[in-house]
Each structure stands twice: as structure tokens, then as C-alpha cells.
């Protein structure tokens, strides 16, 4: 019965209700199923919400980031990356993966992101790099490059941020153990994120490296698929 809250979460998300509402509903259902009174449930909501006020402390960086954006932070970042002559899609995304992971590891999680950087900057640059090399791209290939651009942001962020001692997840883990009488320094937890961070970079970096070959293959297949190109191909044989 106490697992009823999990069912609420699954159904709520599947029906695309607002996540905040789903979480609150799941909390109430779980509490009631666990035999707690409504008053007790409200108290836990209030207590836990106030106790976890440190999680949104990243909001304090927004005035700085907002001000810098207004003054051309993104444009400056573009000009820096533009000077690096990384010619291929794969290499460009590996570089972004690396920068994103290292920046997240020192707490700069706000530098990057899908809306701020991937859509306006990274994905177009990755597409342009492939076009420079292979000419016009098939639609599928173009979408694949976009999807991999988004993936580089996610993988870099996720496996970098846990190394930063002030990151929410690290503090959440510290808080969890404290409730159970085990006291850890954030640094102890953060350090053990490093092996996985290195593995994530190697694994996803390798896949991005192989992406260049996949793009080349797909472009060639598309060319041999069209009648004119087939003829060219026959002549070549």
C-alpha cells in the first residue's frame, strides 16, 4: 500500500500533469497510505521544504549570469570557440562535453544548458562542421547531430556536477546520512564522483568520436540512394 505514491508518480507523469502537482499528490497519497494524519503530512511538507532551502541556492547566481548575458557573454563564448579550428562534429562535441563537465565540476553548472547554449550555439556549430566536410546533410543525419549535441550537454553536466562540493546532490547525500547518524564532509562524497566522471567522458567521448564516421556513412548512403549519385557511383566502379 505504501508504494501507492510511486503509482501516482508514474500515472501523473504519463498523463503529463505538472510535475509539482504530481509530486505533491504522490506525497499526500504516500502519507495517507502509510497511516499518517493530514496534519502530520502538512507538517512534513512544511518542515522538509524549509529544511531543503539550500537546494535552490543556485538561483543566487542568476543576477550575475543574467547581467553577463545582457553584456554579450554568449557572443564572447562563440568568438572563443570560433577561434579553435576543430573541424569535425565529433571533435567539437567532445570539446563541449569536456568543457561542460569540467565547468560543472567547479560549480559552473549555469554555463551551458539546452536553451542557453545548445540550441543557439553548439548544435548549429556541430551541423556546420559536418556540412563543411560532407556537403548538404540528410534530414536524419541533421537530427542525429542535434540529438547528440543535447546528449553532450546532459552527460557533461550530470557526471561533472557531483564533483562540486556545494552541489545539491552532494548536500542531499550528506543530509541523508546525517539523519541516520553518519557524518560526512561534502568533499569525501564529491571525490568519489571522479572515477565515474572519467568513465563517462571516455564512453561518451568515444561515441562522439565514432559519430563522425556515422555521419560520413549516412551522407554517402544518401548520395548512392538518389538516382544521379547512383550513376556516378556506377561510373566509378
Amino acid at each position, binding site marked *: 500500500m505504501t508504494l501507492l505514491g510511486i503509482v501516482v508518480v508514474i500515472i501523473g507523469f504519463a498523463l503529463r500533469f505538472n510535475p509539482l502537482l504530481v509530486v505533491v499528490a504522490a506525497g499526500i497519497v504516500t502519507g495517507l497510505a502509510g497511516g499518517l494524519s493530514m496534519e502530520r503530512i502538512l507538517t*512534513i511538507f512544511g518542515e522538509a521544504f524549509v529544511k531543503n532551502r539550500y537546494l535552490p541556492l543556485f538561483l543566487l547566481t542568476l543576477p550575475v549570469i543574467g547581467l553577463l548575458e545582457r553584456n554579450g557573454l554568449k557572443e*564572447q563564448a562563440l568568438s572563443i570557440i570560433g577561434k579553435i579550428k576543430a573541424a569535425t562534429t565529433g571533435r567539437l562535441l567532445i570539446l563541449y562535453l569536456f568543457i561542460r563537465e569540467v565547468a560543472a565540476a567547479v560549480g*559552473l553548472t549555469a554555463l551551458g544548458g539546452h536553451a542557453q547554449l545548445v540550441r543557439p550555439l553548439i548544435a548549429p556549430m556541430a551541423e556546420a562542421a559536418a556540412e563543411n566536410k560532407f556537403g548538404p546533410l540528410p534530414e536524419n543525419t541533421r537530427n542525429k547531430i542535434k*540529438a547528440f549535441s543535447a546528449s553532450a550537454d546532459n552527460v557533461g553536466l550530470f557526471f561533472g556536477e557531483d564533483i562540486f562540493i556545494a552541489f545539491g546532490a552532494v548536500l542531499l547525500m550528506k543530509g*541523508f546520512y546525517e539523519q541516520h547518524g553518519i557524518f560526512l564532509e561534502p568533499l569525501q562524497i564529491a571525490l568519489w564522483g571522479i572515477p565515474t566522471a572519467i568513465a563517462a567522458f571516455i564512453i561518451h567521448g568515444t561515441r562522439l568520436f565514432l559519430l563522425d564516421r556515422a555521419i560520413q556513412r549516412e551522407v554517402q548512403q544518401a548520395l548512392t540512394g538518389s538516382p544521379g549519385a547512383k550513376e556516378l557511383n556506377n561510373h566509378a566502379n
Partner: protein
Amino acid sequence: MLISLDHIYYVLGALIAVVALLSFLDKNNPKRLLTGTFWGLYSIVFLFGTMISPVYMGVLVIAMAVIAGFGGVGTGRHEEATLEQRTAKARKLGNWLLMPALLIPAVTVFGTLGLKDFKLGGLQLLEKANLTLVSLGIACVLALVFAMLLTRDKGLQPVRESRRLFDAIGWAAVLPQMLATLGALFAAAGVGEVVAGLVSSAIPVDNRFMVVLAYGVGMALFTMVMGNAFAAFPVMAAGIGLPLIVQMHGGNAAIVASIGMLSGYCGTLMTPMAANFNIVPAALLDLPDKNGVIKAQVPTALILLTVNIFLMYFLVF
């Protein structure tokens, strides 16, 4: 003690309060009253969180969820700098623009490591128990002052820019905190024990590898269901990590937490429930396949999950 975490909360509360006020006044936001109320309620959490009785705070939290849940949090209109203005500024300021952003982690690390026992007039300068968070708060304030001097933008401009970003993030800013709250309710209702019971009956608990495997895969699966590793962690750690790996087999608690959480992140890469990482970017990038980003990530996630489980097995004991 001169500067405590509460002071930092007041600064954040004040920032959100001004954002709420600007939202109220934004006639171009059709939902300005509800949007303003949402942020207004949120600022109360930081300004008066510990003074108000938890029961009423609970009601406040649910009110926020209801406002957001029925689409009450809208986006206002923002007077953004044009591309030409931004490019001109970037050319003028150059790499100096990166400095305030880099100042935040630099000051945070300096405060955490360097000011641990620093006293001013016999008083401890920074609250020791929350050294990193207090340092982070101070770093943000210093970086803001530096950024304002650098860009010569004055007055409310940083808050206006913050509201632009607050609007872009919307109710999602509150989600991590809400998920932590769900974790507390799961703990109070004994969900961890139920999961532990189910796991114990399903696997041989005296086999170290099987326990680590169940914990790692459980974190990934539960994260896929909840859409967030933060919500999965308290349940799986209370159910398997702490009682079975740490207490029964004597594993290292820090490693159990860290690699467990990162196994959860492998789940985040594979689920549409993690909407802002997987579904939102698919929409932002105009992908015809809503799951396109997930499909690009699944192989990485599965390989990395395997690596995590072996890392945990070899490092934790």
C-alpha cells in the same frame, strides 16, 4: 558568528521578493497576479521559513504546487539587449566578461578552504556548519558587485535580468526542493523499508555483488520512474544502500552515496520523465522524434551503469 546561512537565505528571499513584485507589475504577462503570487509565496519560504509553523508552511507549499499545476506561472515580457548591442559589448569587454562567472567558484572554494577558522574581532566570520553554502552565497554577491562595476549596469538591472531567467526556468526552479520533500514523506511512511523488504526477499542479501547490483540497477530504474535521482536516492539508500551495503557488509558510506547517485543519473539519461533534460531539448531543437535525445543517450547510460556497478563493487568494500 558574523555571517550565517540564514543571512544568505534572506538575500535570496529578497531577490525572489523583488522578482515577485516586478511580476505583479508586468502588465504584459496575462497571468501576472498568479505568477507574482507564486514567487511571493516562494520568497516567504526564505524570509520567514523558520518563524512560521510547519503546518502552515505545508499549506503554502501545496498552494504553490496548485498555482503551478494549473498553469498559473506565466512568462512576462522582457526588454532584452539586441544581438548588435550584445556583440558590441562583448567586443569591448572581451574575456573580462568571463571573470565574474569564474569568481563564483573561486570565492566559494577560497571561503570553504581558507576561511574555516577566520575570526574578526573575536567572532567567527563564517558559519562553520554550512561553510560551503555560506561561501557560495558571498561569492554570488561579490561576483554581482564585480559584474555591475564591469558592465556599468546599475540599479534594478540585475534583478530584471534575473526575472528573465526566473521566468525561463519557471516552476521547475522549485522542483528539486519539492522532490526532496517527497523523499521525506517516503521516509516517514516507510517506503524504504517496504522496498528493502521486497529486495531482501528477491535477492540473496549475503552475496555482496548481488546487493551492489540491486542497489545500482534499483537507483537507475527508480530514477527512471521518478524522473529524478534526488527523489530515488533517499528511498534506495534507506532501503538497500545503508542497511545492506554499509551496515551489513561494512561498505564505505561516501562511496555508496556518490556512485549510487551517479547510477541514478544513468537512469535520468534514459527517461522521458526527466523532461527538462530529454523532452524539452528535443522540442527546443525541433526534433521530429520526442525521444531522439534519449535514443542518443541510452548506449552511454547502459555502459556507464555497468561500469558504475563494478566500480562500486571494487571500491566500496
